[in-house]
């Protein structure tokens, strides 16, 4: 069982991270990864020039680490890797990479899905969308809260 968390200020390379994660495994058969890429438009359809992720050193890492620990307790996964960008992200670039491994695929899928729902609502970031004409700070959506709630009634005993 290993949990690895990293904030990446420069450049997140999903392929290199996946390779390193797979290389580190110890006989597990199933690896699920999620890559979140910066979409080139806002929810309202404006063209975005960048996405700035402000973070609070220490607190942000702890928020991510708590999410990973919860996932490890809920699902029969072996290893968890979470790498999250901070700073300025450009359109098309990776914002987040999550990988999970387990002997069997169900737990790996569920844990990755859970991690993303939790990260989306509970990770300690402040996000600013930049457009050619200005920028605005964004808050979690009702959908994020709903996605997170999916997990509140299941696996309660695990």
């Amino acid at each position: 069982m290993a949990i690895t968390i990293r904030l990446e200020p420069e450049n997140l390379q999903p392929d290199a991270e996946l390779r390193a994660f797979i290389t580190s495994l110890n006989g597990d058969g199933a690896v699920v990864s999620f890559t979140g890429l910066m979409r080139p438009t806002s929810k309202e359809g404006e063209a975005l020039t960048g996405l700035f992720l402000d973070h609070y050193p220490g607190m942000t890492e702890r928020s991510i680490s708590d999410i990973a620990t919860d996932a490890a307790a809920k699902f029969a996964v072996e290893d968890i890797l979470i790498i999250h960008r901070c700073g300025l992200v450009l359109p098309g670039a990776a914002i987040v990479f999550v990988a999970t491994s387990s002997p069997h695929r169900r737990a790996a899928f569920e844990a990755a899905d859970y991690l993303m729902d939790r990260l989306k609502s509970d990770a300690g970031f402040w996000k600013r969308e930049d457009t050619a004409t200005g920028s605005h700070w964004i808050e979690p959506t009702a959908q994020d809260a709903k996605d997170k709630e999916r997990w509140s009634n299941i696996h309660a005993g695990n």
Partner: protein
Amino acid sequence: MAQQKIYFFGRLAEQLGRSREVEMVEEPITIRDLRVALAAQAVDFADALVDPRVRACVDGVIVTDDALVRAGQEIAFIPPLSGG
């Protein structure tokens, strides 16, 4: 009277800068009283400090307005998190 650094993040950092030096007029002090004391010292962040959606962190942990804080602890005010 102790000097104290107050940190800001997200929208608040953009408006007020990453941190400010303030005076801790008394201590320990509740976050609620600290908001009032700081708002009086620093007019430009009075709005931020009275907004109930802006929360305080002490030593990196979000606390309620009843929490007591001392000079020398790490104190931050944060707007609602955006998530990841």
